[in-house]
């Protein structure tokens, strides 16, 4: 065990400048990588917050539009249309399917109001 440690020590001592340079380079690289990661996380979190705010705004707008649409649907009633001078359609005549006439041709086969 001691011999192994001694051999390792000798080798390391002979190459101490090279090893120091490699270790410092590795630390520098990892520090830069760490800084990049932190920047990446921070910027993505900020972007997430921004998107979250936009989603909130859009969600609120959609909800308001849904409410307006439903309210408009409910306001279109026969009474409301009557205020604009519109009346419910009246059936002028009914042509039964069982008695089509040649003069009416295809229209007779529909059996709908004229």
């Amino acid at each position: 065990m001691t011999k192994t440690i001694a051999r390792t020590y000798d080798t390391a001592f002979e190459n101490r400048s090279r090893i120091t340079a490699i270790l410092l380079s590795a630390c520098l690289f990892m520090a830069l990588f760490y800084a990049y990661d932190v920047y990446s996380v921070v910027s993505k979190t900020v972007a997430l917050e921004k998107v979250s705010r936009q989603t909130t705004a859009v969600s609120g707008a959609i909800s308001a539009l849904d409410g307006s649409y439903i309210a408009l649907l409910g306001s279109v009633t026969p009474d409301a249309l009557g205020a604009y001078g519109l009346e419910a359609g009246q059936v002028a005549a009914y042509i039964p399917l069982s008695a089509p006439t040649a003069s009416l041709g295809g229209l007779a086969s529909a059996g709908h109001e004229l």
Partner: protein
Amino acid sequence: MNSKQRFRTRLMLACVIAAGCVLAAKLYDTDIINGGAYAARAAAQYSKPSSALFDRGTIFFTSKDGTETAAAAVENGYLVYMNPMQVTDPQGDYQALSTLLPLDKASFIAHATKPGDPYEEIAHKVDASTSAAIQGLDLTGIRTAPETWRSYPGGTLAAHILGVIGEDGTSTAVSGRYGLEKYYDSVLSKPGVGPSIDAFASLFSGIKDSVFGGSAQRSGDVVTTIDPAVQAYLEQVLSQTESTWHPDQIGGIVIDPNTGAIVAMASHPTFDPNDLSSVKSNAVLSDPLVESVYEMGSIMKPLTMAAALDSGAVGPDSTYDDTGCMTVSGRKICNYDLRARGPATPMQQILSQSLNVGAATIALKMGADEYRKYFYSYGLGEKSGIDLPDEAAPLSGNLTIGADVDIATASFGQGVAVTPVGMARALSVIANGGYVVTPHVVKEIDYDDGSVVKVDPPRAGPVLSPKTVEEVKNMLVTVVDKAFRPGTIARTHYSQGAKTGTAQIADPVHGGYYADRYLHSFFGFFPAYSPRFLVFFYQVYPKGAEYASETLTAAYNDMAGFLINYYDIPPDR
């Protein structure tokens, strides 16, 4: 290697071992001894475990053209809160915030100066721009956090059908409490976003699910059969009728009798699920159309007539001796006006004049077993199976005893109690040609994984022959065309079958029935021989009128007219 190097080597080894021991000791201290304390500090990054952040599926209305509109959705916003222990200038903070939020000064100052209080909420449901402005103020101790809440864009529209959510009693998760929110809670519930307030902490709240996979629960959106325009009009008609007759309760159902799909269903009193603080009693949250049973009265007579015709006990041209009153098992049963119609009263008059003696006569002629068989075949002895929670079972146990008086009273809708939706289901049997459908308010579930499950309950039967159905329809069309006052509901080019019902209301205190309180009901379907819709109305104890024909005819007529125009239903005669 000389002795110095050997010494240094051993010294390094000793340092490494010592460092390892220090690390191990520190690990033990951090994880085992103080682990709980650190976990508590981490949890302190959250405001409190709360349901402020949740996700939930959307419930949609479906318009006639297939457009889906959100009836219940999750809305996003912000919660403004403060840490009173960090607030240094409550007055200044109030001055700054009051320009952006409506705040009560005394309340704000009281909360901001609470000693030892780490958390107080200032405002909820704040929009994004206001939240950004508050953050821009950079007030010490004042922060904003994302918040979600359940929003019902239609307000009171279809409130009973949609229901509400509430916090679970045992945890802080939200779950459906009434209506579709409760019935489809397992579908609508989604895995929580997590109660974190801090943005960085929230990044890690979902790591476990991301790495190990989320829960196996399938969640999605619920698409209803409710048309918002029809629903809105139905509720308007109910409001108008309610303002005229001041009933204790009023309700209506518009159903496709062929499929059981409910297009509109509402009852008053109602509530706004966006503002439960205005609800005075939780009883209003229950849907009486599903959860309450009533003795429906004379709208049961068409079902009795159909049963009698189908069983062969009577024919459409049969007659009976109407004496005005009859005694069954010692109990007197009389027509509404106590008048006799004579010995050759035709079957049609039982429906046209709503004759109790006639209904009882034909039911007794069928026999108890036969009548009971048809009564239950209409689905009146069981829950309808509607996809809404807490459905009440009908009260018809007295029919199993088979006493003549029970059969006689059931024939005109007294002595047995059914839910309004169960009654609509039974009446649909006549409208749709003899089949028992399952009423439903949901037509499909759209799961988040993209799959779509259609809700298409099967129908049972036929329980009536086509000949019987046609005969009863002819009678009900005659009721509309001849029995109702001219110009009320008959339409020249649209055949309609309809019947009113006026039932006595049971007196729970003194027994028997109230002398002056009635339940009014009305049902109609059109076009009679190929119906698109069946419309059912009821109201409990309307004031100022005795008979349903006075109080509900206008409501039915308005609703039928609206549906004919809205759906462009072609004439049939």
